[in-house]
């Protein structure tokens, strides 16, 4: 894996906007094509294998949590348990997830966390970096079949979606809006009827969840965390309503950092895992303290001997986990994190592509930059 600097396309803003990335710059650029990451085919093969194996390991961890009722350890409220267990048994539709991996090109990739409930940076990974590749290095390849895989999965899920319809909702935010607009487009390309609206516009009539047009919501993709939904006013109605939610409630187990110590307990010293514990760092010398239900790199403490780095935020009231600090290649001056996407859950065939985000600090936040990649 090499980070290579290069000249951005002269009209890069226009090109990424044409691909749907209407928010590409804030205080600094978010989409950064003044560099790219180059991988070997062998490295990509390894990342694909690792992603598929992690997918199976996390499913096994979910089963373990359910079988052993570890909900309290994950600060999951009792009212959410029936939702998790019934959806786990019923296997309702599930779309995607993103493993965040630390990788230095030498050692096996290490799982930092798994975002399988509300992952974003999807459009960038699936579409924008693909167009970048076609414009700049058309003869090179990219670990990326995300777009095609999502459309194929929508087609596969169509019989499960009443009236071949799926509604999308999120917070009224530009980044989340881009993600659901893109997913809405993939659903339509798969032949589904789809609409999108802010999650605050969902209504409840005493029996059903309704859209802004008072239509009963049968199947909803929600880019909004389950741990928030179950604690909010309408959370009490989720069990009685007939709405199919994507992602399903059992994904609550994966949007929780408590998954990491559970994985370590199940697969101790596994090459794709970092040591992780509930409650305390144990004997680890360098570790990262993460809120169980933290988001966007908030309230993280990176501890190294004689040096602590902390991020701010308002998470952590539910408790923390401690994870070993991942080895990083400091020579490149930034901290890259590979976001390895899974689409569906087919054993050995879930890995669908990758995006790279990099930060100037050890913690990936919503200020990190997306950098395209290719491989030989």
């Amino acid at each position, binding site marked *: 894996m090499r980070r290579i600097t290069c000249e951005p396309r002269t009209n890069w803003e226009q090109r990424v906007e044409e691909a749907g990335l209407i928010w590409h710059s804030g205080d600094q650029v978010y989409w950064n094509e003044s560099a790219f990451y180059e991988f070997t085919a062998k490295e990509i093969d390894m990342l694909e294998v690792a992603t598929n194996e992690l997918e199976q390991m996390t499913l096994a961890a979910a089963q373990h949590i359910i079988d052993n009722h570890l909900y309290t350890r994950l600060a999951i409220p009792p009212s959410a348990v029936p939702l998790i267990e019934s959806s786990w048994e019923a296997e309702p539709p599930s779309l995607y997830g993103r493993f965040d991996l630390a990788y230095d090109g030498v050692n096996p990739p290490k799982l930092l966390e798994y*975002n399988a409930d*509300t*992952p*974003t940076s999807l459009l960038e990974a699936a579409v924008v970096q693909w167009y970048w590749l076609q414009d700049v290095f058309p003869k090179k390849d990219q670990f990326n079949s995300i777009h095609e895989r999502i459309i194929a999965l929508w087609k596969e899920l169509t019989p499960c979606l*009443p009236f071949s319809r799926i509604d999308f909702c*999120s*917070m*009224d*935010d*530009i*980044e*989340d*809006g881009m*993600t659901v607009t893109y997913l809405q487009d993939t659903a339509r390309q798969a032949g589904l009827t789809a609409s999108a609206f*802010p*999650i*605050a*516009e*969902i*209504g*409840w*009539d*005493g*029996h*059903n969840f*309704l859209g802004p047009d*008072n239509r*009963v919501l*049968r199947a909803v993709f*929600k*880019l*909004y*965390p389950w741990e*928030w*939904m179950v*604690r*909010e*006013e*309408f959370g009490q*109605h989720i069990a009685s309503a*007939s709405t199919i939610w994507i992602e399903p409630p059992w994904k609550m187990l994966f949007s929780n950092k408590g998954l990491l110590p559970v994985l370590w307990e199940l697969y101790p010293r596994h090459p794709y895992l970092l040591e992780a514990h509930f409650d305390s760092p144990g004997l680890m010398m360098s570790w990262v303290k993460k809120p169980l239900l933290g*988001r*966007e790199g908030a309230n993280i403490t990176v501890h190294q001997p004689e040096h602590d780095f902390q991020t701010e935020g*308002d998470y952590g009231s539910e408790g923390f986990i401690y994870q070993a600090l991942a080895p990083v290649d400091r020579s490149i001056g930034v901290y890259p994190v590979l976001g390895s996407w899974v689409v569906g859950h087919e054993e050995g065939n879930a890995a669908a592509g990758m995006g790279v985000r990099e930060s100037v600090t050890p913690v990936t936040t*919503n200020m990190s930059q997306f950098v395209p990649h290719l491989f030989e």
Partner: protein
Amino acid sequence: MRKPARVTLTVVATVALASCGRKRVDPCDAATFNETACQEAVRSGGYYWDGSWHSIGYSHPYPYYYDHYRTYVSSGGTVISAPGATYSHPSGSVVRGGFGATGEAHGGGAHGAGE
């Protein structure tokens, strides 16, 4: 003047007659079949009638009721359906804003809930 009981009975009878004028009909009954409303009723486990919810434990999928209706029609049965609007839910009783508060509290709309 021992007539109050009789007066009361008269009032009750009047109300009952008024209700009979808008007797609730199941959209999945063959004689009152309403295709769209029946599909919704089976999926929802009930239906609205004049703004009130009626929970019905349909024991079969929608095609069962449709087939039953077709058989009824082909054997000469008469179908008197209620207007579709009769089965629409009362929009005035919808509550909104029950999702989204946590995200607003965390980000105030400055950034979303995805990560």
